[in-house]
């Protein structure tokens, strides 16, 4: 009986992390080394386009979403996107926006953004 309770508790803990789903679209075949877990990924909103003055490459697009009823928040989605960005080796997220779709009393929150890496000086044109 105790084991069953332990198992159910463990299952609940594992399932607790399933509130969001993420998608990634690759724009390049190249791979970049993952960033340190403590690396700060800056998130620039769509309203603040990044010009070419600081050259960069857009390596892919990330999308993270989840339902508000599952405790998902815009901040949580952005953090999930940052984790994905670090794993992909991205320096920052640009064109970021959070969309909200209302659906039968619930709300689907979707974070979207483009992952970028800053171009090294020698490759910047």
């Amino acid at each position, binding site marked *: 009986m105790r084991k069953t309770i332990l198992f159910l508790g463990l299952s609940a803990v594992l399932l607790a992390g399933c509130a969001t789903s993420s998608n990634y679209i690759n*724009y*390049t075949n190249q791979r970049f080394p993952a960033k340190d877990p403590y690396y700060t990924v800056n998130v620039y909103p769509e309203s603040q386009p990044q010009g070419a003055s600081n050259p960069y490459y857009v390596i892919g697009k990330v999308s993270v979403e989840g339902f508000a009823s599952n405790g998902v928040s815009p901040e949580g989605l952005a953090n999930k996107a940052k984790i994905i960005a670090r794993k992909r080796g991205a320096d920052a997220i640009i064109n970021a926006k959070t969309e909200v*779709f209302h659906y039968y009393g619930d709300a689907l929150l979707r974070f979207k953004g483009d992952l970028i890496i800053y171009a090294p000086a020698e490759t910047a044109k």
Partner: protein
Amino acid sequence: MRLTLKILMVFLFLGLLVTRPTTSYAWHGHSYVGVNFGVWPGAYYYGGPYYPYNPYYADPYYYPRYVEVSSSYQPVLVNGVTYYLNNGVYYIYTQYGYQAVATPAGAVAPAAVIQSAPVTVTSTAANTDDSFTINIPNNKGGYTAVLLKKSGNGFVGPQGEFYADFPKVTQLQAMYGK
């Protein structure tokens, strides 16, 4: 009986481990694959979580073999060169992805460039337990007051951006120092 229970528990636990933590949509009665909810704008593809070559899969340990051409980056032909325009910025496509470039000579300025939303903060706002006003040096030689509000364990900036930790001046300067 106890052995059977143990085996059952081990299999269930292993099943949980191999099941990707993907969507909550099953809890809402939706399917995983090819769902178009109709009431939401556009179709949205929820790829099979076990398909190793799924280009939509966010896990970097499953390297996708496909490279997508983004519909957000619209091709524009300028002086015989194909540029890609997204959010008012010109890009060229390279092996590393879309590279941001300066607006090419002869290119027509994009009709609608989304401008930054004005930051309305009062420099006299007092710091409270939940809000903090920080003066960030800007490019004009002055300071821009940036109001940060506490949200959960982090802080939210004037444009809704979230900082897990209290942001450094350099972070805020990137957004509000222009």
